[in-house]
């Protein structure tokens, strides 16, 4: 009770006297940064999940080849889930004399549960978000269908026994299949109209979908209920199973955001440690006095710990409030820029804020303050008694353990934690080594120039260990700044380059072999470029090593799924650019021998097959059998057509096949596509621009979020710098006063200060560049799986930034101390 009361009074007095300001500010910055990032990434993460849901148009989709038990829907309703139903089937659509195969999408009124339909009023017109779905008696047609039938919006088409009026052009639907399997252009109709078509009969090729959306917990519960009841022809697809490309993009985005919050925490914690050290040093005398007045060691320590508990409470509350405000501002700006509304934040970042304050206080402030608790009372008589020294092992051990624990709680990724820790510890070790060398080497240059030079260098040399600590602190914060400013940009650019600007945006399928030369000539004439084409063979895996697939035990569910569907096969002599052979031998261009197979390595794992096994595919009623002679890894996010199964050339050329072609058409030339559709009526054109821009939007949003988050981290870096300068403030005031008294002009003293900070900054810059290069390389290579080349800018920028930032900030921040009247300073001593 006595401790609590004393600590409370001490806390109030410290607050009032401004003794705690720097420490509080540092911890508040830590908590604010952390929770701003936490709240923001929480919301961005939510938005990301929504984006992934858009690929499904729901959070969970149940797909079946037959009518789905209505019981599932009542279960979904009971759990409070939203739901929608769709029916997909191919059928011939008639318009006057013209007929064409169309993929009918019959949707219920609630479709889509996630994402939005994009429609236009004219063929290739400007798209806009749709409200609702086609009304009964109406249809929304994909551009390809209108092109094939030579129709405009407003025309009528017949589906079975029903005539429908086309009221919109359907440009985009969230669950658009980007696997190039939909052969016919789509026509979206109202689900309630389907019975009136008279085309869906038992045995028809119809895919039934039920879609569900709700909270993560609801979906998980529902999925758990549903899974054991599924028939063999029913399958569930969740957000996590959604498109490979989107998943890869989101995964990287989240790693980026995690990295952002990570460096903010480290920077702010360094600032807090510096502030705590300064506070502790300033309180040596007070603690000695308290002990002289009869305070026991345990009392002093108890009061310190209690006061720190108040610090945690205050900084948590203030920091979380500020953090929420900061993220709100960020979210508003982000929304304004990219036009998406973030979902509300969860309460989790609040806990994270408290945890951050506690981690920073316990890991970075407590050791310094506790060590001061051991100050001997004799210090009241003997000022020259050195302050109690904290062993480096304790200081850094506790700090690293605390930050490591916090980081692990946040990222839950030991590899990333390891890389970060390695970079920081490595830089610290290198920095201490180099800093020590510099301090030693400096003495040689002291006589080289005037008094300012000598004073500045002498300052660094005389403070020895402290200078090294400062260099390390500057170096570490600069390293992070460089990591954000340069390496982040490099990694981001590399990442964005995985989606090339001129990625093929028009994909054509259903090209008859005899149409191919004409199609190539068409594009050569229109855009001066021939499309890349690959043969497309539809086949179903029927046997593995002669054993029918029904009797084959595959390795996992993905393998089982492959057995369920018709596969897209191709044949080629040259290994596709985004493929790498990991096992076996590629047959090579010009091969014309017996048929061989090359499989995606992951598919081989899923199926449980290896090089040397043989597979049998049924292609148009005919069985073809071939050995697997190579396995490949495929870079799926290359935005090039890729195939799980590739056949060797030669014999394959005689199999029934069509062609798939891809080409880049500039946006201002897309009007030519309607001519293409008319000239080659059987060819289905998929405008991937819409799909790609959707993917790019996800990436853009992620980048945008990352940049905002990093902006905040930059701010934390500046605070570290100021805290570091604050640490030596008292000493500088005194020194300047002495120099003034001895007759040195203010300008000379300032010059000396400038020399000192520019020198410190330059060295810190070099250290930072080393650290950033190593860390950037490690992160890019191991965490993000990107190729990273060190930017030529990094080193000169590190040096210049270090010298400039530290030089200017240091000189400015010290100016006041230098300019104080000497008598006021000397009296304080």
């Amino acid at each position: 009770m006595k401790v609590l009361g004393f600590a409370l009074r001490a806390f109030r007095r410290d607050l009032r006297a401004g003794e705690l300001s720097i420490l509080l500010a540092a911890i508040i910055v830590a908590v604010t940064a952390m929770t701003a990032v936490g709240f923001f990434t929480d919301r961005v993460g939510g938005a990301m999940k929504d984006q992934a849901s858009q690929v499904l148009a729901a959070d969970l989709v149940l797909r079946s080849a037959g009518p789905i038990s209505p019981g599932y829907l009542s279960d979904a309703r009971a759990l409070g889930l939203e739901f929608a139903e769709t029916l997909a089937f191919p059928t011939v659509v008639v318009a006057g004399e013209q007929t064409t195969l169309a993929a009918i999408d019959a949707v219920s009124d609630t479709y889509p549960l996630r994402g939005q339909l994009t429609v236009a009023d004219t063929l290739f017109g400007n798209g806009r978000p749709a409200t609702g779905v086609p009304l009964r008696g109406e249809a929304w047609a994909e551009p390809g269908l209108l092109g094939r039938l030579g129709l405009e919006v407003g025309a009528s088409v017949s589906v079975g026994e029903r005539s429908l009026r086309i009221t919109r052009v359907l440009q985009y639907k969230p669950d658009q299949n980007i696997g190039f399997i939909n052969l016919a252009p789509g026509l979206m109709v109202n689900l309630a109209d389907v019975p009136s078509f008279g085309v869906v009969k038992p045995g028809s090729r119809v895919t039934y979908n039920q879609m569900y959306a709700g909270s993560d917990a609801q979906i998980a519960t529902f999925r758990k209920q549903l899974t054991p009841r599924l028939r063999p022809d029913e399958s569930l697809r969740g957000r996590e199973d959604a498109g490979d490309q989107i998943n890869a993009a989101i995964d990287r985005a989240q790693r980026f955001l995690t990295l952002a919050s990570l460096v903010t925490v480290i920077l702010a914690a360094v600032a807090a440690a510096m502030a705590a050290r300064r506070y502790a040093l300033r309180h040596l005398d007070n603690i000695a006095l308290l002990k002289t007045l009869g305070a026991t060691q345990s009392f002093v320590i108890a009061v310190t710990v209690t006061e720190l508990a108040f610090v945690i409470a205050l900084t948590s509350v203030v920091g979380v409030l500020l953090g929420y405000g900061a993220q709100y501002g960020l979210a508003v700006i982000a929304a304004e820029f990219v036009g998406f509304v973030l979902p509300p934040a969860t309460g989790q970042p609040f806990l994270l804020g408290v945890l951050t304050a506690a981690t920073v206080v316990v890991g970075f402030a407590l050791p310094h303050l506790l060590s001061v608790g051991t100050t001997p009372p004799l210090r009241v008589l003997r000022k020259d008694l050195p302050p109690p020294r904290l062993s480096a092992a304790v200081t850094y051990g506790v700090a690293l353990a605390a930050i490591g624990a916090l980081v692990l709680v946040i990222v839950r990724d030991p590899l990333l934690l390891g890389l970060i820790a390695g970079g920081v510890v490595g830089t610290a070790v290198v920095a201490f080594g180099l800093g020590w060398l510099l301090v030693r080497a400096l003495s040689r240059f002291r006589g080289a120039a005037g008094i300012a030079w000598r004073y500045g260098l002498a300052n660094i040399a005389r403070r020895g260990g402290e200078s090294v600590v400062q260099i390390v602190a500057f170096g570490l914060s600069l390293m992070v700044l460089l990591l954000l400013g340069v390496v982040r940009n490099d990694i981001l650019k590399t990442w964005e380059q995985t989606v090339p600007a001129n990625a093929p945006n028009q994909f054509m399928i259903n090209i008859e072999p005899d149409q191919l030369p004409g199609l190539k000539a068409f594009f050569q004439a229109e855009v001066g470029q021939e499309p890349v084409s690959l043969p497309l063979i539809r086949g179903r895996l029927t046997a593995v090593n002669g054993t029918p697939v029904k009797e084959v035990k595959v390795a996992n569910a993905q393998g089982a799924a492959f057995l369920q569907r018709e596969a897209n096969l191709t044949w080629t002599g040259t290994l596709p650019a985004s493929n790498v052979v990991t096992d076996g031998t590629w047959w090579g261009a010009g091969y014309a021998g017996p048929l061989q197979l090359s499989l995606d390595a992951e598919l081989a794992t899923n199926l449980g097959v290896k090089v040397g096994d043989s597979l049998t595919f049924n292609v148009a009623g005919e069985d073809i059998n071939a050995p697997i002679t190579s396995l490949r890894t495929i870079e799926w996010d290359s935005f090039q057509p890729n195939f799980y199964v590739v056949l060797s050339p030669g014999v394959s050329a005689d199999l029934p096949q069509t062609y798939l072609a891809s080409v880049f058409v500039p946006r201002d030339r897309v009007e030519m596509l309607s001519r293409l559709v008319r000239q080659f009526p059987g060819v289905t054109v998929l405008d991937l621009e819409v799909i790609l821009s959707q993917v790019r939007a996800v990436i853009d949003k992620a980048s945008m979020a990352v940049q905002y988050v990093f902006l905040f981290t930059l701010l934390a870096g500046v605070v570290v710098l100021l805290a570091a300068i604050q640490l030596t403030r008292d000493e500088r005031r005194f020194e300047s006063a002495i120099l003034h008294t001895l007759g040195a002009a203010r300008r000379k003293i300032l010059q000396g200060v400038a020399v000192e900070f520019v020198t410190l900054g330059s060295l810190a810059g070099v250290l930072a560049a080393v650290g950033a290069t190593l860390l950037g390389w490690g992160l890019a290579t191991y965490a993000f799986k990107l190729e990273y080349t060190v930017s030529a800018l990094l080193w000169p920028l590190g040096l210049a930034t270090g010298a400039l930032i530290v030089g200017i900030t240091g000189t400015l921040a010290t100016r006041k101390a230098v300019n104080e009247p000497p008598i006021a300073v000397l009296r304080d001593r």
Partner: protein
Amino acid sequence: MLRAAGLTKQVSSPEGILTILDDVSLNIGRAESVALVGPSGAGKTTLLAILAGLDQPTRGRVWLCGEDITAMDEDGRALLRARRVGFVFQSFHLVQSLTALENVMLPLELAGEARAAAVARETLANVGLSARVGHYPRQLSGGEQQRVAIARAFVMRPEVLFADEPTGNLDSATGDRIGRLLFDLNAEAKTTLVLVTHERDLAARCDRTIRIEAGRVEAGEVEAGRVVA
């Protein structure tokens, strides 16, 4: 009240073992005032620190208020100081972030005294600083700061008061006033006073002067200005 027997203090230095105090013994009675005098570096302050329990001797024992403080640990000595010992220092040692009143309240708060503010106010009035209770140390003159320090020393009504060069940082007129204040309060509270000083006048006010030279008590002690055998 205060007894020391065979006090020796040695520290290791680059030149080897350095003896600061060499077999010092003394006995100071209740309400007695004693000045420790001697040249700089003679060991006066070290002796004061050991007598007050702020430092430990290498050899020898100290009994303060009847308790052997050399047998106590740091915390034990702190508790003893809290109840029975006061200090006045040459450099005042006021907490810069606290007002005069709060500085005087400190020992009361450490002792858990409920009426800390009232008692402290009263004590500040006794040293003539009623008008200055809300001032911070840097807003006070040197003499005023030392008066705050004296108020802080007396506020717990200590049995023993240790003063280390209490007038050392003050001009002679102010030093004189502070000296008078110290002795007036001492007489009134019947406190045992041990002070280290270079000021002859201040030493002369004491009942007894103990002269320290090179770590040893000089043979002749001076009592109220007279050398006694």
